[in-house]
């Protein structure tokens, strides 16, 4: 079809950038190919005004089929491709948004993820389309109050707003976050609102706050409200109502990271870490995963497939940890060595390479090397306990749900016999809490076992889960020497390439080069430079 090699099929996702990337999961990811011009076989000309019933049906069909896709090679669902084509013009885009708001049920664990997935992969909407959608929704304080009758609709609206906030350009974003819209989102944070709506209003505010001007507008409004509604939501942090608990987590996160209030202490300064000897590793995590101040709970609100490993390592013997499932959607939780890569933007996570093995209780699949084996048990629910048992003597890995054991797995041991870490990957809007043994286990296995918390040790400074803006500020103040390697700035520039004679590189960068970075000439020799 074209002459440009950019269009080669395997290259298609290359220029994607993560925040907009829909890599919720590799296999879902693989189902989404840009519709046209690269997939002309699916191109169906759609009439200007699409039939609302047809679009409703296509949205529900996509929702139904996406959870059953387990194979990377599987073709994308036809319903999804059709929706993308429909959304290519203004009326179509508005109809797709309308249908999603109308038909995606509150109870479907993948609902919000599918909305973001569909919108994210639609052709870029025009400014007018987006304004029309926003006008059509006609959001205000009053609409928020009226909307309490219909939480599923309001929840979906908030998910859509989050997507719009993330997709649109800065100045336009400012216009969209109008006063009535802000009233709407802030009113939704009130105690009478369904917690599902509270949750996604909070996430929408977080996404709007990505442009700094919006952030200061929101902050100003929050300061005027007394008391700040987000402070009250933070108290839901340890609720056993799992939607409220997610709200609590997100409220705490935005107060620590985004909407910093003068009269509030950062959570990392107040949390008690005395008994914690093992936690999620803040230096071994993909960039968008949110980790709680105590290092034991994690959540993803990005569209990428975020991953993390724990701080302690299992090299021999028998080990066990538990995970409390907060959200019943797609997570891949299990064991990984350091060789397992977090390719969050490509949608690969734990269980998607040869060095990790994971269970996904939403789709009931054990994952190894990006291949899955179906398991015969009900899908996991909020509050379920996933047990992760690792026996390096046998060797075997046994997952359990609420004490009920799945068949043992051994695949991963052909590649590694030691160096295992607890690890997990999260699709968008998923959350779970780890217990490495600091608390009593709910379903301890009958065998003798060790725990990371009894064998792990952490220095005080490693137990700090610092808000990212503080961490980044500290980093950016580092001084960088002028005689540094011009490629990495880590080491001293000390070598010269021959025959082109270009210099300014360190030996370790030079060893990774195929040609001179300055003139692209092939080089034959790397020589030490005499100052």
């Amino acid at each position, binding site marked *: 079809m074209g002459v440009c090699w950019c269009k080669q099929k395997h290259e298609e996702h290359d220029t994607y950038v993560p925040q907009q990337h829909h890599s919720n999961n590799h296999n879902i990811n693989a189902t989404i190919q840009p519709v046209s011009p690269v997939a002309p076989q699916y191109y169906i000309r759609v009439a200007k005004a699409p039939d609302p019933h047809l679009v409703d049906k296509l949205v529900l069909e996509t929702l139904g089929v996406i959870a059953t896709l387990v194979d990377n090679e599987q073709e994308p669902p036809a319903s999804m491709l059709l929706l993308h084509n429909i959304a290519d013009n203004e009326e179509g885009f508005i109809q797709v948004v309308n249908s999603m708001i109308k038909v995606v049920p509150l109870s479907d664990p993948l609902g919000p993820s599918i909305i973001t997935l569909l919108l994210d992969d639609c052709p870029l909407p025009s400014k*007018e389309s987006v304004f029309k959608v926003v006008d059509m929704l006609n959001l205000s304080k009053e609409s928020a109050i009226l909307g309490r009758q219909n939480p599923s609709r309001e929840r979906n609206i908030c998910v859509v707003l989050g997507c719009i906030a993330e997709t649109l350009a800065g100045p336009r974003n400012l216009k969209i976050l109008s006063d009535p819209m802000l009233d709407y989102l802030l009113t939704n944070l009130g105690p009478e609102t369904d917690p599902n709506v509270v949750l996604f209003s909070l996430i929408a505010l977080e996404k709007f706050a990505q442009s700094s001007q919006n952030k200061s507008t929101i902050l100003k409004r929050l300061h005027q409200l007394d008391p700040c509604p987000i402070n009250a939501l933070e108290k839901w942090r340890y609720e056993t109502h799992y939607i409220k608990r997610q709200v609590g987590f997100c409220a705490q996160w935005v107060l620590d990271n985004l909407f910093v209030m003068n009269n509030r202490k950062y959570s990392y300064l107040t949390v008690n870490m005395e008994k914690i000897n093992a936690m999620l590793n803040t230096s071994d995590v993909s960039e968008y995963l949110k980790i709680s101040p105590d290092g034991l709970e994690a959540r993803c609100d990005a569209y990428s497939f975020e991953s993390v490993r724990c701080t302690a390592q299992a090299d021999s013997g028998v080990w066990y940890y538990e995970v409390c499932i907060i959200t019943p959607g797609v997570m891949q939780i299990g064991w990984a060595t350091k060789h397992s890569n977090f390719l969050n*933007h490509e949608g690969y996570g734990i269980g998607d390479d040869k060095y990790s093995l994971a269970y996904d209780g939403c789709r009931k699949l054990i994952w190894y090397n990006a291949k899955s084996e179906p398991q015969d048990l009900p899908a996991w629910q909020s509050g379920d306990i996933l047990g992760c048992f690792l026996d390096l003597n046998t060797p075997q890995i046994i997952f359990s749900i609420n004490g009920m054991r799945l068949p043992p797995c051994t695949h991963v041991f052909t590649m590694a016999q030691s160096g295992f870490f607890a690890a997990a990957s999260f699709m968008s809007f998923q959350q779970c809490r780890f217990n490495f043994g600091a608390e009593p286990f709910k379903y301890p296995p009958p065998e003798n076992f060790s725990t990371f918390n009894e064998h792990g040790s952490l220095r005080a400074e490693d137990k700090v889960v610092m808000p990212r803006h503080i961490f980044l500020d500290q980093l950016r103040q580092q001084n960088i020497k002028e005689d540094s390697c011009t490629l990495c700035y880590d080491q001293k520039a000390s070598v010269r390439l021959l025959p082109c004679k270009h210099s300014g590189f360190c030996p370790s960068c030079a060893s990774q080069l195929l040609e001179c970075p300055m003139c692209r000439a092939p080089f034959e020799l790397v020589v030490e430079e005499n100052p």
Partner: protein
Amino acid sequence: MAALPRRIIKETQRLMQEPVPGISAVPDDSNARYFHVIVTGPEDSPFEGGLFKLELFLPEDYPMSAPKVRFITKIYHPNIDRLGRICLDILKDKWSPALQIRTVLLSIQALLSAPNPDDPLANDVAELWKVNESEAIRNAKEWTRRYAMDN
């Protein structure tokens, strides 16, 4: 989050201290590898007067591999497709670790000044650009007005 490579810190510091005219690139508050970019449409191009938002991400092995960049603002350009993906050699096989965020963004600005319909990513746009350039330029101006200007 893994420690941030010095290279990224250095480039960020320079971008803040000596910004490129017509281009703003601001690192995300929570992700130092992600930049919010706004490029102004070059003078004497059909994109003049427009503000184009892009996102730029530095992958794990940057600078050994190229930044990932895409347009977020809709644009009528033969080398940029409906999803905002850019067909530009230095983002692909012509990447060199000596290139920087700054040089990449300058190249993208230059691509706006000089569309290349012989190496298209958006086929229908390229087609029109070749057979009826003035019509294509009219479209590009219209899209700029509709999608990239605020009033």
